[in-house]
């Protein structure tokens, strides 16, 4: 048929295919750029994210303050870059957490089927309906203000939808012949789930995950409101955007710059996700 690559792992293979995707490569560069700005930006900037200058509040962008200043005269570039650390960490890690939980749960539920499935899904229904705010408050009471809790709280909400999607896909895959072949070969259920079903779910999961990241970043702002997560004067994109939105007529740059970083990251993630989905599918190289 077609010429075949001679690589030996899906990962390496996928990497080769990903490299061929121009949009994905560009997105990767953009993401790396944003990572670098977030990691080293605060150090390179002559202002710190918390340094106030009450004489220079609400300054529009100029040479000294590239992105302008906020209501306490703090440099917005420093705050945006610093906020990037938190938002990226929260956005990516929390999404990962919810991926791990949601995908495992959904796969097990879908694969087990029958009563177990319907019980597990009713469990998801229950969690969907529980009042999130009270749940988070209780979490904080029980475990204190632990930064890790942030991930637990976000994971606890976001995995539910993922579990549903995964379950539906698993139900479809369960009846394919290669899964039946695996059963005929005497593979254990766990092996079938993680080695044979999981890789075939990656496409939709990655796409959904890229849509989860923005939701998580904004959810972080809500959690800050409840006292979990980022504490002032630290910043995050979610909280910067929220504050900026309130002052957008008076000081539009307060919304513009964090919003821009946020949007660019999401676009890049989206294209990278699409690229990854294609790259992880060995078939995709067949049709241009």
């Amino acid at each position: 048929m077609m010429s075949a690559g001679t690589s030996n792992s899906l990962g390496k293979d996928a990497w080769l295919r990903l490299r061929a995707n121009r949009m994905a490569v560009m997105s990767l560069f953009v993401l790396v750029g944003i990572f670098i700005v977030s990691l080293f930006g605060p150090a390179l900037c002559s202002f710190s994210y918390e340094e106030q200058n009450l004489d220079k509040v609400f300054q529009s962008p100029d040479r000294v303050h590239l992105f302008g200043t906020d209501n306490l005269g703090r440099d917005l570039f420093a705050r945006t870059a610093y906020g990037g650390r938190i938002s990226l960490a929260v956005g990516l890690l929390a999404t990962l957490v919810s991926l791990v939980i949601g995908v495992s749960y959904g796969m097990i539920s879908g694969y087990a089927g029958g009563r177990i499935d319907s019980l597990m899904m009713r469990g998801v229904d229950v969690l969907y309906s529980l009042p999130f705010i009270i749940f988070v408050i209780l979490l904080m009471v029980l475990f204190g203000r632990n930064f890790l809790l942030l991930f637990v709280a976000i994971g606890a909400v976001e995995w539910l939808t993922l579990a549903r999607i995964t379950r539906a896909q698993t139900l479809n895959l369960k009846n394919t012949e290669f899964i039946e072949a695996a059963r005929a070969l005497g593979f254990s259920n766990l092996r079938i789930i993680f080695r044979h079903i999981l890789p075939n779910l990656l496409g939709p999961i990655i796409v959904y995950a890229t849509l989860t990241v923005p939701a998580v970043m904004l959810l972080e702002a809500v959690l800050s409101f409840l006292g979990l997560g980022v504490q002032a004067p630290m910043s995050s994109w979610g909280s910067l955007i929220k504050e900026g939105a309130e002052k957008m007529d008076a000081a539009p740059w307060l919304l513009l710059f964090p919003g821009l970083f946020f949007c660019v990251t999401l676009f890049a993630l989206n294209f990278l996700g699409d690229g990854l989905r294609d790259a992880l599918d060995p078939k995709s190289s067949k049709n241009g």
Partner: protein
Amino acid sequence: MGQLNIQNLSVNFHSREGIFQAVNDIDLEIKEGEIVGLVGESGSGKSVTCNSILQLLPCPPAEISQGAIHWTNKDLLKQKEQNMERIRGQEISMIFQDPMSSLNPYLTVLEQVAEPLIIHNLATPEEAMQQASDMLVEVGVDRIRTSPNSYPHEFSGGMRQRAMIAMALITKPALLLADEPTTALDVTVQAKILSILKEACKKLKVSVLFVSHDLGLVAELADRVVVMYRGKVIEQSDTNTLFRNPEHPYVKALIACRPTLENSSNRLPTVDDFISPGDSKPKAIKSPPSSAPLIGKKTLVETKGLTVEFTSKDGKVRAVDDVSLAILEGSTHGLVGESGSGKTTLGRSILQLIKKTSGQILLHGLPIQEQSSLQKLHFRKSMQIIFQDPYASLNPRLTIEQTLSEPMTVHGIGKSKQDRKDRVIALLEEVGLNSEHLSRYPHQFSGGQRQRICVARALTTEPKFIVCDECVSAMDVSVQAQVLNLLKSLQESRGLTYLFISHDLGVVKFMSDEISVMQKGKVVETGTAEAIYRDPQMEYTRKLIDAVPRANRKAEFYS
């Protein structure tokens, strides 16, 4: 000059790897009222040719690089899309291979059959429905009278293909393009569909371009046959001439490699036997029949009163009903029946992939009951299955090496990674592949190669018993021959026992020592292959035998 005239047609497919020429400068002519057969293996360019007539090819990636297709007085390739829409379905209609996916699952059958009339303003909606209903009855879909609101999924494959025919002919077109219309159907159904098609076309004076990979089938129907191979027309002549005196070695091979009912040889001729580099002479085809005597062999697998029930909306359905079979060690037990007769369910329930409702399954005379996991593993090791669709039965995300070495890891075969790799290579070589293929993914192989991989996977655990579930039904005749030969030679070298399930009596007879015939979940007849063929006891069995295209017999006669 005929009604349809294809001149110098070339079609290219663009892909990342480069340009692939699917059709290479072909000429083809269909005269008024003529039935032309277009034959070739998958990938030979026959379907592409057929689709390019109505410009149904997806462009890109396809591109018609040169040529002309003259229809009456216009060149179809130069027509605007709107004009093409007028021609499609009105002057030229088409039937597709897979009636399962070619009908819209969301619309009723009647609606879809009537649609061409509505689209081309040939009737009011009410009239169209009436005509469609009449047409469906004419092609044998009587149930449309009683349940006019049926959806495609409520129809069997045969019924759907009848509906497709009705839909194609309802506008009384001048030309019908039939792209492998019976390939996906049971043999018995196939025969019926062919006769309906033939009858209807004669009645309506429709010319037909009948595309198929099965030369025997084409012979039944066509006035003239065109054979394609790798994008080129290699031979065309009227049917009788072609069968009596094939010129091209490939055509000769095609005629020879279909298993037949009369011929019982140990090995089927393949295309390679006819076309091999440097040596264009056919190699020896026939070898004396060598059915080893069955007497004195032990029973390996046995079922006693095996019953499998499913619950559906109409209550419980018995897919397998009180089946008792004994499969002798080292032999092949054939299982034939129409689709829906329960043969697949039987095969899977023996492997415990489907839970049985009652009855017993014995291996080496010991019942397989609720077992401990260790025993289960052992049991899995000794029984394997090869599925019908090699596309669906391989995990698309695993390389061949991963697919083949994984069962060894699970069952603890092989001492080290390297050892397992060596074993995998040995297996690949055994099934006719080689170590180059280790790191490839399933989609990079052809159907025949994939089925070889499936065979290799079934062999990884060194089983004694393999269920072959319609494992060659979806294949071209020449590929089918290769796979069947492979299975035979493996049986010889490894002393395997097969349960060979197929709807094609010809194939089953070629493979099997004993045959069981299944109907509606029950085994209605069992006996040695010869006995079943020579002296069928049941009307049903006779019907199955009759359904094997006569042309095959004719072809054999000619050869």
